[in-house]
Each structure stands twice: as C-alpha cells, then as structure tokens.
C-alpha cells in the first residue's frame, strides 16, 4: 500500500499549515486517534485555498497533501466530482482497478487504490476529504448538498 507517491506526499506535504479561511473544522478518527484541523477558502465557488494541520499516520497525512494539490484552484463542482470518485475508490475494498478515466480525475490520488484493501486504513485516507466536505458545507452554507449537517 505504501506507493512511492504516498511516501513522497508524506515526507513533503503540500500546503501544510493553517492559513486564513472561510470555515474551519476539526475531525478525529476515533479508531486510531488521527486528527486534522482544516480550513477552506473560497473565491465564489472556486477553491482558493485548503490549509490544514494535524497528526496521524502516513496515509492520513499524505492524503491531506494530495487533497490540497488536487483541489486548490478547482471549481466546486469539479472538486466534488474528485471527492466522490476518491470515496468510491476507497470503498471498493481493493476490487476496483482504476481505469484511465479515473486516473484522469484522481491524478496522484489513484496511488491510494491499494489502501482500500485495508479497512482499518480507509478511514485514515478519508479523514481530510470528509473534513473538506464538511468545511465546504459550512463555508458555502445551503449551497452544498451536506446542508443538513450544517444545520444540525
């Protein structure tokens, strides 16, 4: 599961550190204690920054780095598509062989395909992505599908 891409992101994380944002969330993975604090900044519906800080294993750290690399600069709708594709891959229990179309969407993130075989680690890989989804819902209010969560 430890693809070079993952190790690279782990050792040299992209965009790490907390910067100015429209919303901040703190997510915890209770089964292993991984934590992330994540902020999103939007320019209209364009993601102008995703900044984060946290502690955790290589998978959760690398995943946050890949997220930053992939999403910053994207339109919300494109980012959502990436997030959903990543979620699909991670929930595939190792049964999904990423095709070209998926690789095009996920870029470096396809390296996590192998992680999906390890149920205990899937949550690590998803931690920052769930935090991003949540923060986006907060930043953009009712605009996001996850509006319920915000109102809770």
């Amino acid at each position, binding site marked *: 599961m430890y693809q070079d891409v993952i190790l690279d992101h782990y050792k040299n994380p992209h965009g790490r550190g907390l910067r100015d944002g429209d919303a901040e969330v703190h997510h915890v993975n*209770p089964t292993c204690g991984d934590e992330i604090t994540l902020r999103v900044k939007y320019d209209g519906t364009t993601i102008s920054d995703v900044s984060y800080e946290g502690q955790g294993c290589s998978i959760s750290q690398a995943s946050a780095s890949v997220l930053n690399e992939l999403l910053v600069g994207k339109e919300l709708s494109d980012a959502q598509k990436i997030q959903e594709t990543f979620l699909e891959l991670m929930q595939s229990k190792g049964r999904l062989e990423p095709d070209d179309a998926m690789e095009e969407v996920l870029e470096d993130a396809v390296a996590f395909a192998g992680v999906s075989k390890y149920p*205990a680690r899937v949550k690590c890989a998803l931690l920052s992505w769930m935090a991003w989804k949540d923060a986006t819902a907060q930043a953009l209010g009712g605009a996001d599908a996850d509006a319920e969560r915000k109102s809770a």
Partner: protein
Amino acid sequence: MTQLPGLLDTEAIRKDFPILDRVLHDGKKLVYLDNAATSQTPRQVIDVLDEYYEQHNANVHRGVHVLAEEATALYEGARDKVAAFVNAPSRDEVIFTKNASESLNLVANMLGWADEPYRVDHETEIVITEMEHHSNIVPWQLLSQRTGAKLKWFGLTDDGRLDLSNIDEVITEKTKIVSFVLVSNILGTHNPVEAIVRRAQEVGALVLIDASQAAPHMPLDVQALQADFVAFTGHKMCGPTGIGVLWGRQELLEDLPPFLGGGEMIETVSMHSSTYAPAPHKFEAGTPPIAQAVGLGAAIDYLSSIGMDKILAHENALTEYAVKRLTEVPDLRIIGPATAEDRGAAISFTLGDIHPHDVGQVLDEQGIAVRVGHHCARPVCLRYGIPATTRASFYLYSTPAEIDALVEGLEHVRNFFG
C-alpha cells in the same frame, strides 16, 4: 412412516446434526423435542466455529494485522447476514448481545436513562402481557421499581390467547413502551402484532417485540412488523450459545443512551468525560462474542439455504399432526391454543394428575427429551391453575415418527403411574 404435505427432507437434514445420532440409556435413540429451550447445532455451524479459532481468531476493530482484519470482516459480515435475515433497513441497526435476555434488558435500561420523549419515569406506564417469558417480565419489574413507572399487562383468554378486549385502557397516552412476545414459548400462541402496534402508534408508545421463538421458525421482517425493537437469541436458531440480537430503529439508537460502558463503544475517552461511537457499537461494550456472532451468521446461512418459508410449512404440518395425535391421548389437556392455527411448534400440556416432572422423567427413560416446569413463564401456570406443564417443541429436523414416539411414550407414562 407418516407422510404429511409440506414436510422437509428430514432424512437429509438430520445428517447435518451430529447430536441426533446419540443413543441414550442403553440403546434408546434420542428423540429431541426440547427445541423451544435450545436448538441443536448443525455441522455447518460447528465447522465455521472451528475455522474461526483455527484460522482467523483475533480481536476485532482497530487492528492493522491480517488476523484482526479477517476477524473484523467475519464479525461485521455476520451483522450483514442478520440484517438481511430480518430485512433491516440498515446493518447499523443490528446490535449483538449475549442472549435475548440481554437484548430485552438493554431496551429497558435505555428507556430508564433516556431523555424525553422516551424516558420512562413515575408518570409513565409500561405494558407487557401475562404470557411473557420471565426475561420480558423481570426487566420491566426492575425498571418499574427503580423509576416508579406503572407496569400493566394484557391478560389471557381461556384458550391461551391475548385478551385485547380492553386494549384502549391498557395502552394509554401514558404508555411509553409496549413489549410483547411474538410467539409464546409456553403456549405456542402466535400473537396479533398489528392490532397492538396500531394502538401503540396511536398513543406514541414504542414497541418491542420478543421474537425469540419466532426468528428460528418463520420469515421475520422487522419492517413489516413495524416495531421499534425486535429481540431474539442465537441458540434457538441453530446458532451457538452466547449470542443474541437486538434490532432497533436507527433514529432511536442514535437518540437513546448507552447501557454498558467500555472498550469498543466509545468515540473518545478522557478521565473527565467520554463520547460514544455511533450505533451499533455504542451498545456493544467490550470484546464482543466474536466467534458466536460468526457462528450465528453460519446458522442463518444454513437456515436460509433451506428456506424459512419451507421451515415454517414443515413445522405447521408437524404441529397440526401433533395436536391431532396428542388430543387422542386420554386425560391430556393442551395448555394453549387447542388447534394448529396461529400457533408455533411448541405444545404444552398436562396429563391427568401426573406431575410433569414424572412425565418428563419417564419419557427421558425412553430417550424422549421434553421440557417440564413453568418454562420461565410462571404467570401462565398461575393463570391456568397448574403447577407446571410438559412441553414438546419441534424444529426443522423433527419428524412425524418422533411425534408418534412421544404419544407412545405418554401411554407408557399413563400406565406407569396409572
């Protein structure tokens, strides 16, 4: 050999159950008619238990090693099987307990510690019935004593059915919970769910159904039942001992407080306070009965491969035959519905003045295993003015020949004490 329509191929099925080959008392073949107490275990379930301990044993959740992942997949896979078996809308609604008794106590304790609108306290009422198993009486007596809530119940008619004539007085606006048995373990009665659920919903009371004697014997659909909670137990449905199930509606499981505290059921713990994992884990403190859940999953696979509708048809045919044959025995009085209609495959009876202990003992000498006593439903014995009953109960491997053996055995009992 007696042939009845709807019977299963018991010759093939009996080969799956090693214990049915046992020979007792110098040459008497075991006639096991104590299935309402516990069912026997097929080779398929024993093999899965062996394989678990020989190949995959590990503690579940949180492990990153192969065994832990395998054990977790097996344990959670069993949850999927149970969810499918009872047609649960979500696998997260299936809580593993140690037996049906724990499942029932779990609900009583959830409600005792709940916030409004679920909280049971001195201004509220609890409704059960007079035909409940002690495990669906004592938890409510304890809750009633400890909260001051009033405990009410439906009485029984002379022919062993629920007396629902005063349903509107029994279930009122004060009722928080109605808990009743789907199929009685002593009377065999199959109770009318719809009428009770409708009235409970009218007044906003929750409904808990004790399906301990139903889940093993018929298709069970928690959505069709429209209950809020359904409890049953593994050892009566070809599974191992040490495993029970509580199904509960998701939003209730989210709202209600935990019962046992400990590992597995937490989200995060500090010395000052803790938060809890989402259901079902919130209600599963400590290392769960892992192998037993996996064994229950195997039992469900086994039962499903035969088909719950076919098992029901088999038992209906046997019950009809048994009622007919038993009615022919002089001085025999069936306690419970006297026909095979709306009843399960457990038949209680008295035999003249002969005490059930003596009936059971003399049957045992012939290799016939029945249960005698109050069957953990003493209020039923009080209701019918009897000290105890003898109970014969059937399952998918039971045969008409075994019913014939029972009837012959009873003749012998009568002669012996006559």
